[in-house]
């Protein structure tokens, strides 16, 4: 070698290095020669036969349970009828041979062939182009598959669709996994198939877990739903094929998706040189997801839903929240109308699927909205206790009399004039007369709260509302947690803020919107002595396997968000007035009363206007807690009624609350008072 010779002969070390290098190169050369020339045919045959495909197996999704361990969402086996390409390969071949055109050879056969019984003319395979052969093979595969699908359709007694292109795609990309032709077979269909077709290698059942909600539409709004997840994400490249997996879209299914979901595992499938499944081994076992245990009590949840249905029929737009005022635990959360979450996993009989589908398309219903947490409306009179607290703290004497003057246009009702020149009239719903704090709450006088609210000053009202955290999210991880609207101190001090705006706020209208969940938190705070809690929906997250020994993740209850910092006397005045609302003959919430239970309540009716300022609907409220002596439960009922339907908070919502309290009393008799109703 030329370079070699140039390395100085009198430099033995360098020469040795050169020889070592040459030896190394020779070893590599020899190795490559061996691998690429001598044994290449072996590797060429290995090329496809030794290929692995990885299939992603999702972890078993965790269940969602109520506080007593009753199942609200779980997994069930779902039977699919599938084609197994590996078992069909010989049928494909046979069909191809049958389809292959033959032609009659021109020359007739010699007579001795005829003697032996051969047909008169020789038949030869017609020459075909490569494209023709490919097309013919597809034709053969399609024919075989179509024949099977038709047979199955007769066996199962239901029409099955068969799409050539999806079949072709599956055949080309994933021969080694079953190709489903009918999904979600019921027990009857499974039995019928087993009777008629077991043993056919090309068609069989395959079982996949599917998400089911055994309670149907019960608690659907808070549970949320899942959809099939085929996004793949960044892990996609690692797998050749993904078995169906779910991801939560809203509700608990969304908020706790990470925990419910678990870790996927993988199956390694060895495929042969045609791409058919040869053997399989489980790689990493999937890790099942964890169960989410809610604070929801299914009994109370059902009671609330039944109460709503009993008074408002099917599909009213409404929200109900039952909450423990001391712990912030949400015991029931109803959002209506609700769609059965099984609809999204297609686990409903066809007629019910259609019904749900019609609901989804009805723009008036909006069943995907959780009205308890995601719909913010003006609260109306149920906001008055907040204004009342601000006024009392500012020094309002509850016994001080405010005279509501009569509305000249409508002498049965009161009114109040505000503005610089007292020329702006706001109508009241109550009759004119003398009102102290208690009577103003009981009858819900707007004039009294406007007068005293303005006297207190909008800043103090806003400061009080800020302690309740109106205008802020309640921290529920359901993806449907609206912040609502509430003016800030900065806004009310701007020049474009008028006395009229303040007056509106004082009776829960105008530039504000709250969610029922925010009202629930606020009434809990009023009930429990002034502690604003974070609402708690999930009690703990624990392993699906009770014997795993794995410690559950427990979320603490009664986590404090803020303190109202108001005098206990102010709260007592508000409690007394609210008790009067359900017990006083004049009170608007009398229909909530349950014998033996003292309920503090507040009714409300808010007018909902569209962008043009036209009245389009009413929101009826009943916000309450009980028992009066030592409050334990808060019950918030909101019903939205489009015009021209009418009513009032007391008439529409209080009876619903009544039914819920009746069930609460049955479940928890400790809240009953010994010295029954005092008047």
């Amino acid at each position, binding site marked *: 070698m030329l370079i*070699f010779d140039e390395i100085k002969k009198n430099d033995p070390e360098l020469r040795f290095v050169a020889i070592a290098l040459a030896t190394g190169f020779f*070893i*590599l050369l020899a190795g490559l020669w061996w691998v*690429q020339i001598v044994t*290449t045919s072996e590797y*060429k045959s290995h090329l496809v036969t030794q290929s692995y495909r990885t299939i992603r197996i999702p972890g078993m999704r965790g269940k969602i349970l109520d506080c007593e361990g009753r199942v609200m969402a779980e997994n069930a086996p779902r039977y699919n009828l599938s084609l197994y390409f590996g078992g069909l390969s010989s049928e494909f071949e046979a069909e191809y041979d049958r389809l292959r055109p033959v032609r009659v050879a021109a020359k007739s056969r010699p007579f001795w062939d005829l003697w032996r019984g051969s047909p008169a003319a020789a038949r030869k395979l017609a020459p075909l182009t490569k494209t023709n052969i490919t097309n013919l093979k597809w034709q053969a595969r399609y024919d075989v598959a179509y024949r099977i699908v038709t047979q199955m359709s007769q066996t199962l007694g239901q029409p099955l669709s068969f799409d050539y292109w999806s079949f072709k795609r599956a055949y080309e990309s994933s021969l080694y996994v079953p190709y489903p032709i009918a999904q979600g077979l019921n027990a009857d269909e499974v039995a019928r198939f087993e009777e008629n077709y077991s043993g056919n290698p090309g068609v069989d059942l395959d079982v996949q877990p599917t998400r089911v909600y055994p309670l149907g539409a019960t608690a659907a709004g808070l549970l949320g739903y899942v959809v099939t997840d085929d996004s793949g994400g960044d892990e996609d490249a690692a797998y050749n094929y993904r078995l169906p997996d779910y991801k939560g879209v809203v509700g608990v299914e969304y908020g706790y998706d990470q925990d419910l979901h678990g870790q996927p595992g993988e199956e390694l499938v060895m495929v042969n040189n045609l791409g058919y499944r040869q053997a399989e081994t489980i790689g990493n076992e999937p890790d099942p997801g964890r169960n989410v245990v809610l604070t929801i009590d299914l009994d109370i949840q059902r009671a609330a839903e039944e109460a709503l249905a009993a008074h408002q029929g099917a599909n009213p737009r409404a929200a109900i929240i039952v909450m423990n005022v001391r712990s912030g635990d949400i015991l029931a959360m109803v959002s209506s109308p609700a769609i059965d979450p099984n609809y999204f996993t297609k686990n409903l009989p066809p007629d019910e699927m259609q019904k749900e589908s019609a609901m989804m398309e009805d723009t008036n219903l909006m069943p995907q909205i959780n009205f308890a947490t995601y719909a913010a409306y003006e609260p109306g009179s149920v906001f008055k206790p907040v204004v009342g607290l601000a006024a009392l703290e500012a020094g309002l004497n509850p016994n001080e009399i405010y005279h509501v003057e009569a509305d000249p246009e409508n002498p049965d009702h009161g009114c109040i004039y505000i503005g610089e020149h007292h020329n702006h009239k706001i109508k009241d719903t109550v009759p004119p007369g003398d009102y102290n704090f208690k009577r103003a709450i009981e009858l819900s006088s707007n004039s009294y709260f406007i007068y005293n609210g303005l006297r207190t000053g909008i800043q103090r009202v806003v400061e009080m509302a800020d302690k309740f955290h109106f205008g802020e999210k309640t921290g529920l991880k359901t993806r449907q947690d609206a912040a609502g609207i509430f003016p800030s101190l900065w806004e009310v001090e701007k020049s474009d803020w008028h006395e009229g705006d303040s007056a509106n706020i004082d009776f829960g209208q105008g530039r504000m919107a709250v969610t029922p969940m925010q009202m629930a938190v606020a009434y809990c705070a009023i009930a429990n002595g002034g502690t604003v809690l974070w609402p708690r929906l999930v009690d703990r997250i624990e392993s699906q396997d009770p014997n795993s020994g794995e410690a559950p993740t427990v979320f603490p209850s009664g986590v404090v968000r803020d303190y109202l910092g108001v005098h206990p006397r102010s709260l007592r005045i508000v409690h007394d007035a609210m008790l009067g609302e359900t017990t006083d003959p004049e009170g608007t919430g009398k229909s909530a009363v349950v014998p033996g239970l003292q309920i503090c309540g507040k009714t409300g009716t808010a007018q909902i206007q569209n962008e043009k300022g036209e009245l389009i609907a009413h929101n009826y409220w009943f916000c309450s807690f009980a028992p009066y002596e030592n409050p334990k439960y808060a019950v918030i009922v909101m019903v939205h009624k489009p015009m021209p339907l009418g009513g009032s908070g007391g008439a529409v919502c209080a009876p619903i609350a009544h039914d819920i309290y009746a069930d609460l009393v049955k479940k928890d008799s400790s809240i009953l008072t010994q010295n029954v109703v005092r008047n």
Partner: protein
Amino acid sequence: MVDPSINEHEPRLDRLQLAALAGLMVIGTLFVASATLANPEIAASAWYRQMWVHQIIWYAIGIGAGAAMCFLEYHVLTRWATVIYAIAILTLVAVLIPGIGSVHLGARRWIDLPFFDLQPSEFAKLAFILAMANFLSRPADELRRPAIFWKAIGMMMLPFALILKEPDLGSALVLAPTGLAMMYVAGIPRRFLLQLLGTVGLLGILLVGDILFAPHALQILHGYQRDRLLVYFGSDYTRFAPSNASAADLAKMRQTQLADEYNVRQALISVGSGGLMGKGWRHGTQNTLGYLPRAGAHNDFIFSTIAEEEGFVGSVTVLALYAVVLFAGLRIAGQARDRLGKLVVVGVVTLIFSHVFINIGMNIRIMPVTGVPLPLLSYGGSSVLGSLIAAGLMQNVHIHRKGY
């Protein structure tokens, strides 16, 4: 022997070596493209996100850095060798600190800089060569002293240990032949080196014996380093299962083994199925169908892509280009003005050769799988930059050879 009048007409640069380097860079660009374009996601992205474009940019930067190396005479360069070595050691320490060094695939080897991920070990190897050459270019009688020998060993063990800690077994191992060759060429007495080789060999046998036969508690290597050696020796992972392992645990171990063997087997199938002529550029089925691990097809396993698509002919071409670069390097070493120049070049040549041998060797299963890049062909900024700076060092010695 050397006639100055002839030398005046000789080119100052070693053009043969430069031509071979250029050839390697062309091949590198082509096959980084082939390996990465097989991934439809990468193929669909804009041209300036293509990895082969990045590779060309790194070549350009590397050529600039290599050319810069030629301007400073290597004596000037090696005067700073101790400083360079110290900086290299500092970066190697830095990379081990969580927060500075970033972890990819279980190894802490990179420092994430805004525009690229620096792999300090690539540059530490060169710093080591400069420092070692500087250290060994002392009077010949001093080299016979054991103290000098042990100091040299110490200089080698420091980066070796730090790189091994990352862990990057392959990059650490290439330091050994490099250091030994330099000591040998410098004139360290042969018996020292033989003793060292004997000891290392014995330790190596003990290590392999430990991996293959020792009970679980006495295992020295851990995790994937051991696993990779096991794959190489064809042993069964379940051998090391604790005595109370359940059937499921054993199945899992076998599974892991299967997955680990997968890379090696797929690379071997790629190379073997290439045959004499290969399947054609961008037609390698192992590559395009994604059987070759996507993460490795364009860097550590680039050779299997080349071998599959261009066959034995392609493999030999690559080997021949490396041979030209390295033997031209040795010729430069032979013509070097002094021992310092000779040692720098011998170090660089051995380093590149070790990379080539280990990398190609692992593709045909004569070496265990270690994350060693193939110089100039594998995708990666640090590696390309390091290789071209190394080439620049060789050219530097050539420019300032005897007679100039």
